[in-house]
């Protein structure tokens, strides 16, 4: 606690950077003006959470963050497949090129509220298909851990190639250090597209797999998915909501115990189509279909919030899939889009949505009733409180916000409420 007392003013400066007048972006200043008027909640980054990992472990691209009933924070990351063995994980090669550092941490990590690593597991095993690339993570009422398999059928796109949330693998790191640079590692062998979700016990014992890699079927499938990006547990109905995904254009609901298919829907509650909409154009009419469905988040009042990332929009439904409303967020955003993941505030009314915008490298604070953006947290950068491709958000029972950064962010950060 002592260290937190020592730093808050500085941390505040970091978090509120987006509001300072020297920012040239007119949109951000405007957002902060609204924030002042509507008193959006304030947060401080905690630069010393989590505690350092043991064994010279480092994180790859973080694709999912969730909080369990004990306020433990679970993350899933891509591990070695997102690390550069030449520059980043020199202990991963045979023979190793480094003496001391670094190795990828296991893909699933559990931290206690103090930031201590309390369990770690994951990776290929008997009886299931570990994702080519993991997506989001969710914890159900029994503490079981659900992981979406969001990986790509083709070799990952090059850096900056709009590979989406799944991002790039390590390649040559752009010639820094230059001469004598080893050639880029060969691309990984082609694998079938991930088309499944996995369920494990809290200790990492395999329990169930829904869907099978390569069997993507269609948007009408009741047995398979197509690169599902994320998932959410509904305790009231014992159901799992699946954001399906990078390949499909729908939300799918299954029974959390049996895995049995229950229902699905597309944008506006309509049947999802297999034909992808044209590339996003801010000037064009809103697409009738989802582009990339990267989150599905439930509010206590039964509203279902869906990230249509590629369309820069949030669509809201009831639990049966009946369309309620929608809102554009940062409408001019191109490339991956602005709405990557959503979590809700802990007040009884859940007045706020926290939206990870990994294209803009910030978390948006959105008024849930109006769906208007009323504030922002962070901006681009690698120092505490800033982001590189923030793609995951989760909130604990105390109102602490946790973020996961994918691509080259490769961090989990904690933001505590208050100024």
């Amino acid at each position, binding site marked *: 606690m*002592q*260290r937190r007392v020592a*730093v808050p003013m*500085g941390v505040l*400066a*970091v978090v509120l*950077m987006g509001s300072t007048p*020297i920012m*040239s972006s007119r*949109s*951000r200043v405007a957002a902060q003006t609204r924030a002042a008027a509507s008193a959006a909640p304030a947060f401080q980054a905690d*630069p*010393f959470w989590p505690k*350092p*990992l043991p064994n*010279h472990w*480092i*994180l790859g691209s973080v694709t999912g963050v969730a909080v369990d009933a004990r306020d433990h924070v679970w993350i899933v990351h891509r591990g070695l497949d997102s690390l*550069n063995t*030449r*520059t*980043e994980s*020199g202990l991963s090669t045979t*023979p190793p*090129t*480094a*003496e*001391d*550092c*670094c190795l990828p941490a296991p893909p699933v990590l559990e931290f206690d509220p103090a930031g201590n690593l309390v369990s770690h597991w994951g990776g290929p095993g008997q009886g299931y298909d570990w994702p080519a690339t993991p997506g989001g993570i969710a914890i159900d009422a029994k503490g079981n851990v659900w992981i979406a398999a969001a990986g790509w059928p083709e070799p990952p796109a090059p850096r*900056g190639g*709009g590979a989406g949330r799944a991002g790039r693998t390590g390649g040559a*790191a*752009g*010639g*820094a*250090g*230059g*001469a*004598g640079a080893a050639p880029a590692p060969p691309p990984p062998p082609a694998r079938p597209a991930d088309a499944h979700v996995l369920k494990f016990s809290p200790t990492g014992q395999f329990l169930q797999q829904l869907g099978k890699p390569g069997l993507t079927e269609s948007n009408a499938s009741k047995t398979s998915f197509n690169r599902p990006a994320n998932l959410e547990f509904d305790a009231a109905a014992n159901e799992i909501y699946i954001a399906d995904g990078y390949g499909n254009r729908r939300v799918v609901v299954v029974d959390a115990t049996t895995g049995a298919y229950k229902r699905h829907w597309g944008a506006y509650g309509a049947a999802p189509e297999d034909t992808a909409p044209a590339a996003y154009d801010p000037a064009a009419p809103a697409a009738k279909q989802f582009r990339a469905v990267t989150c599905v988040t439930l509010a206590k009042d039964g509203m279902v919030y869906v990230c249509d990332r590629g369309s820069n929009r949030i669509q809201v439904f009831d639990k049966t899939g009946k369309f309620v409303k929608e809102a554009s967020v*940062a409408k*001019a*955003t*191109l*490339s991956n889009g*602005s709405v990557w993941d959503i979590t809700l505030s802990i007040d009884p009314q859940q007045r706020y949505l926290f939206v990870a915008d990994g*294209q*803009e*490298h*910030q978390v948006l604070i959105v008024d849930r009733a109006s769906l208007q953006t009323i504030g922002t947290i962070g*901006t*681009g*950068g*690698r*120092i*505490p409180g*800033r982001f590189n491709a923030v793609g995951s958000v989760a909130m604990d029972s105390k109102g602490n916000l946790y973020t996961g950064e994918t*691509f080259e962010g*490769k*961090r989990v950060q904690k933001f505590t409420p208050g100024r």
Partner: protein
Amino acid sequence: MKKLLIGATFLTAIVGLNLTAGALERQAQNTLVEAPRFEVDPMWPKPMPNGWLLAETIGVGIDARDHVWIVHRSDKLSADEAGAAQNPPTASCCRPAPPVLEFDTDGTLLRSWGGPGQGYDWPISNHGIFVDHKGIVWIGGNGGSNGGKGDGQILKFTQDGKFVAQYGSAQQTQQAASNDTTHFGRVAKIFVDPRANEAYVADGYLNKRVAVIDADTGAFKRYWGAYGNKPDDTNMGAYDPDAPLIQQFRSPVHCADLSVDNLVYVCDRPNNRIQVFTREGKFVKEQQIAKRTGGDGSIWDVAFSKDPQQKYLFVADGKNERIYVLVRETLEVLTNFGDGGRQPGQFFAVHSIVTDSKGNIYTTETYEGRRLQKFVYKGIGKVPRTQGVVWPGK
């Protein structure tokens, strides 16, 4: 009888030692040593304006006012990092900061400049920054591809970014020429000796030498290779930790810094060694660190402690992600701090290191590290041999 008992006890002790050799080794590792202590300041520097980001941050220098100067490769941001700089923009944030940035002691960004301009050749890939006793900012460059054209020049600017001089020509054909006295071979770092007004050039990524030039005219004065040998550009192949040490540097020669007692400390990076010379290039001694390190090697940059004798030498190891603290006189490694990762006090390719007049350390990270970090000097104290991250209160 008594003798026998003593013998038996001794035998037991020996067996016990053998059984617990690993534990003893670990204990030795954790023995506390007296060394300069540091704590990372996670809030330094302050956020930059304009949505500016750092890319590969490839050099750090300090001026007479303890302002921190860095150089980074602003063209290395990915499209999704620098969304505002794309055409059309993909986001309202962010964009590359100019290549040369000056921070005051509070970490506030002051001046910013750099990039191509009239009368000089900005490096294909800038590398290393030094602010000399006259306030001049020196920049090297290690760009180029084998067989193509590359950086053979050093640049000098005023602190406002006004071009002063260029030594060596740009667009050199990429062939090592370590005995050439007209241009350089992809320079990693420059260090100016205020007493003799000479610049020591770590030359470099193509050449395998230290070159010394007149700091005002750029005139070549002398140069040398490993052990003070005449440099030889023969390809010696990859470093092998089990082979005898070679008689030449392996590119890149990554630093050449002069101490107060006129010794030149040279980073022979892929050979995992520091070689020490007189100012004239007479070999004095050497030390390997983390000798089994492959790839980029372990000796990336050095800096001196700020006591009058410069008792300690700090060595950045961007491969094993830590800073070594050495006794300069003996080159004994006392302790190290840091580890891999993206949090404060952790590193991804810690590339450059410098100390200010208060003894604080500043580091920059290349590749995807892309940070400038400050480690506050906390005086001499007891620390373990391996410290891990140096967080406040830890």
